């Protein structure tokens, strides 16, 4: 038995800071290629996650000049073919779930919370960009 600390590689940290959009796309691709402890997501989930997250980051980059202040998300799966990402900043967080298939649609959603509110929304590019902007607003 051995205790193993969680660390993201230095190279990944640098990429997350210098090119956030490329970083999230490559991390989503890694899930699709197979990652320790994770179930390989469906092509639908992979395609959907990459398209929406990358486009949301590009909106943020256009709007703010850069998405580099955005905290790097966690990347994982729902063990049923779906993909999940989570961003945290202070007491705020944004979570997205990309379901394995178009149906049931309830498995694809955006969740956000702060100490004063929480809600589930449709997961599309605009909503995600808006919520990530909200997350960075402090």
């Amino acid at each position, binding site marked *: 038995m051995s205790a193993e600390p969680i660390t993201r590689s230095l190279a990944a940290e640098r990429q997350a800071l210098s090119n956030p959009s490329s970083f999230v796309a490559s991390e989503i691709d890694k899930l699709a290629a197979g990652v320790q402890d994770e179930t390989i997501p469906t092509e639908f989930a992979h395609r959907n996650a990459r398209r929406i997250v990358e486009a949301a980051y590009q909106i943020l980059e256009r709007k703010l000049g850069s998405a580099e202040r955005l905290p790097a998300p966690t990347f994982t799966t*729902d063990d*049923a073919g779906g993909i999940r990402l989570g961003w945290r900043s202070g007491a705020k967080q944004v979570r997205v779930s990309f379901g394995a298939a178009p149906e049931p649609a309830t498995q694809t959603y955006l969740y956000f919370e702060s100490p004063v509110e929480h809600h589930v929304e449709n997961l599309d590019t605009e909503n995600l960009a808006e919520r990530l902007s909200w997350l960075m607003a402090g």
Partner: protein
Amino acid sequence: VADGGIEGSTPRAFRGLQPPDELFRILRKKIWLDDLHEAFVLRPFEAGLSVCYDCPIDRCIEVLPAPGLNTMYGVAKITVGQVLDLGLVVVPDTPNHALILGISWEEVDFVASRLAELAIIVDRTKRIRR
């Protein structure tokens, strides 16, 4: 173990769980140590969140019925009372295993956040099912 009990222990009837009783959630992904929220997210194929009770931490992996669970990276502890306070229920299904039930699909992440806030990681040891 076929009946979900701890190997070598005497079979016994399920006891009623009380609010102070401790529940242990196995952290079966390394990333859950960093992001405890994800450890409490109900999966699409699950009726409830799987937890162990009346079980030494180092033997939790042996009582889980989940097929394919061969590796764990730690354990998070929460009490029955904390779960009940969230409006959820804890239903034992073997002498050492229970399910946290009552999580609606609309509240999967909200509940995961609350459970993650209340839970404490009590073990960070990688263990492999024997």
